[in-house]
């Protein structure tokens, strides 16, 4: 069973990568990118039951690392490109680390909260000039406030996303009734995120040896079945 690390331990993908780099006294370079990539993917995996959105963000950086790593395997013309990508990633990590440190500094200030004065000095009601206000303005302001809020309502964006563990379980359930074809399973996914999560779920099942994947020829459907 995978060891589960709480998501809060890392501020996100950069947080995780930075920790690996710092702990391993590594640098993000052509030499170490392979080690870093495999460590990163390993740890992402250990993060366990992440929501699809978070997992997608962790995977995005994972893909970027894989891409940089893969450049080393290709002809020499890619060397410069790889260097650029590495420099870019290094710069982003340095920038990110700056703010990570600044946020720790801020946290140290949290015991220094200051207070304003409550409203106590008021004029007598007779001295208080009332604003010139047309009440229809008030009705409009209220309607605008409600409208402005509307896009923030989660009605349109609240799609239920399945976690990796849930998708693994779904695959197991289906497979107990016989082999399935990958493209049909992908068709069932409601969006790209679910496809990504389904893929990682499938990879996990392959890794643990629970399932077997086969393809008759290059363009034939990919079949998944339980290992006996």
């Amino acid at each position, binding site marked *: 069973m995978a060891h589960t690390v709480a998501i809060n331990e890392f501020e996100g993908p950069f947080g995780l990568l930075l920790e690996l780099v710092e702990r391993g006294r590594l640098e993000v370079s052509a030499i170490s990118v392979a080690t870093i990539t495999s460590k990163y993917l390993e740890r992402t995996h250990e993060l366990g039951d992440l929501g699809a959105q978070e997992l997608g963000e962790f995977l995005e950086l994972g893909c970027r690392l894989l891409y940089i790593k893969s450049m080393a395997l290709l002809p020499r013309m890619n060397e410069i490109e790889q260097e650029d990508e590495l420099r870019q990633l290094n710069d982003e990590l340095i920038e990110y680390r700056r703010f990570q440190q600044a946020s720790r500094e801020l946290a140290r200030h949290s015991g220094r909260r200051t*207070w*304003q*004065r*409550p*409203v*106590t*000095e*008021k*004029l007598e*009601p007779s*001295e*208080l*000039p*009332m*604003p*010139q*206000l047309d*009440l*229809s*303005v*008030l*009705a409009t*302001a*209220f*309607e*605008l*406030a*409600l409208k*402005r*809020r509307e896009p*923030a309502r989660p009605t349109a964006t609240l799609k239920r996303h399945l976690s990796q563990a849930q998708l693994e379980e779904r695959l197991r359930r289906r497979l107990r009734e016989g082999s399935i074809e990958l493209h049909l399973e992908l068709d069932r996914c409601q969006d790209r995120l679910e496809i990504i999560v389904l893929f990682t779920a499938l990879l996990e099942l392959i890794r643990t040896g629970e399932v077997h994947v086969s393809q008759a020829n290059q363009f034939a459907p990919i079949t998944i079945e339980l290992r006996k």
Partner: protein
Amino acid sequence: MSELSASIEAILFVASEPVTLGRLAKVTGHDESAVTAALHELIQLLADTGLRLTRHHDAYRLVTAPEASELVRDFLTEDARTELSKPALEALAIVAYRGPLTKSKLDEIRGVSSDATLKNLLQRGLVAEHGTAPETGHPTLYAVSQAFLQEFGFGSIDELPPLQETEVL
């Protein structure tokens, strides 16, 4: 200024009512004679500033210096005369239509903190405290003030102009 005097000044600054000697002693963890000495120090140090420490029976409060009273009144009047800002108008509208409500409900509807805006409306006398909510912590409820209702000639809040479309939050 001694640390104790500074602490007392901070406490009196945030207090909405005069604070008794006993309460000051309790919250600062000093005995009443030490607090009394610190209060005396504070009275002297404030003498040439814009603030004063006043005592009524055994309760203390910070007030503005009498020399500044005219300026303060001018400032508050002028403040009340300035046109309502957009955020203030919006908050007032929500309090009018959805009140009595708590500050956190108001923040939620607006999606931003209404701290400063609400204070301004309170000071201008357009919004007033209206009891507390029954939920945990009993947060203060806010509603439009009597002065607001009188000024705009409404017998009650129910006579506010109807909304064009009814929406449920």
